[in-house]
């Protein structure tokens, strides 16, 4: 494939991914069905994983699919089940402060969007952004070894804490 054809393909792929991510995210925060919100969350997470692949970050993309869709969404479904949230429609899903929520969200998007367009304008990514998984792992297990170990202990502590909190005495 020529370079120009690749560029067009990348733009089309990005458009599809962006539409899935934004549409899914809007459904996650507006739908009145809790289980359906979890399923829209799967679409958003898959779209974000696809955008990682588009950026050439294979390992992060695959980890996104494995950890988020494989584990975290299942955890959410268990949470929904255990708290006996109504499976069907719930009448009042948004709180009284939703108007200020809309205001804050729109203002944040406006400020962030304006700043990004103003600062980065039409700066291009390098043509080849692919990075080898071997380089990522080299970096984790040499330069970032201590943060890696700290994060492991954090995960252990959090999971032990979650069990202690949630078990019945």
């Amino acid at each position: 494939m020529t370079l120009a054809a690749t560029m067009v393909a990348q733009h089309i792929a990005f458009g599809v991914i962006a539409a899935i991510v934004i549409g899914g995210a809007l459904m996650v925060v507006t739908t009145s069905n809790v289980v359906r919100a979890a399923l829209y969350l799967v679409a958003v997470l898959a779209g974000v994983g696809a955008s990682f692949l588009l950026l050439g970050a294979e390992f992060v993309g695959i980890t996104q699919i494995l950890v988020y869709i494989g584990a975290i969404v299942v955890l959410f479904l268990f949470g929904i089940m255990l708290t006996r949230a109504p499976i069907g429609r719930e009448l009042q899903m948004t709180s009284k402060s939703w108007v200020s929520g809309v205001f804050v969200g729109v203002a944040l998007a406006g400020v962030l969007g304006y700043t990004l367009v103003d600062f980065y304008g039409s700066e291009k990514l390098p043509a080849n952004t692919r990075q080898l998984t071997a380089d990522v792992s080299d970096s984790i297990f040499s330069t970032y070894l201590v943060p890696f170990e700290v994060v492991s202990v954090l995960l252990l502590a959090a999971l032990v804490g979650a069990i202690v909190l949630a078990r019945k005495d």
Partner: protein
Amino acid sequence: MLINEFLLLAAALFAIGVYGVLARRNGVMVLMSIELILNAVNINLVAFGALHQSVVGQVFALFVITVAAAEVGVGLAIVLLLYRNRASIDLDEVDAMRG
């Protein structure tokens, strides 16, 4: 590809997540909105890593994914405890610390 395409996508995702945190009443739904925010940050990290041809962005994105997993575990345990104590996960009713 422009760097701004990814950054604007992340900004929109972040703003939607903030709206969800502020507007949702169900505790589990608030945690889902927090996941949207963390994902927006990850897109930014990976995009800047690609812009600067550096693996550091990916390394940090992996750390953020780990911390997000820990956060969901503890968050759902807290929501479960809330449900057990009050038989409801409506966050509008959890106002014992209101001034």
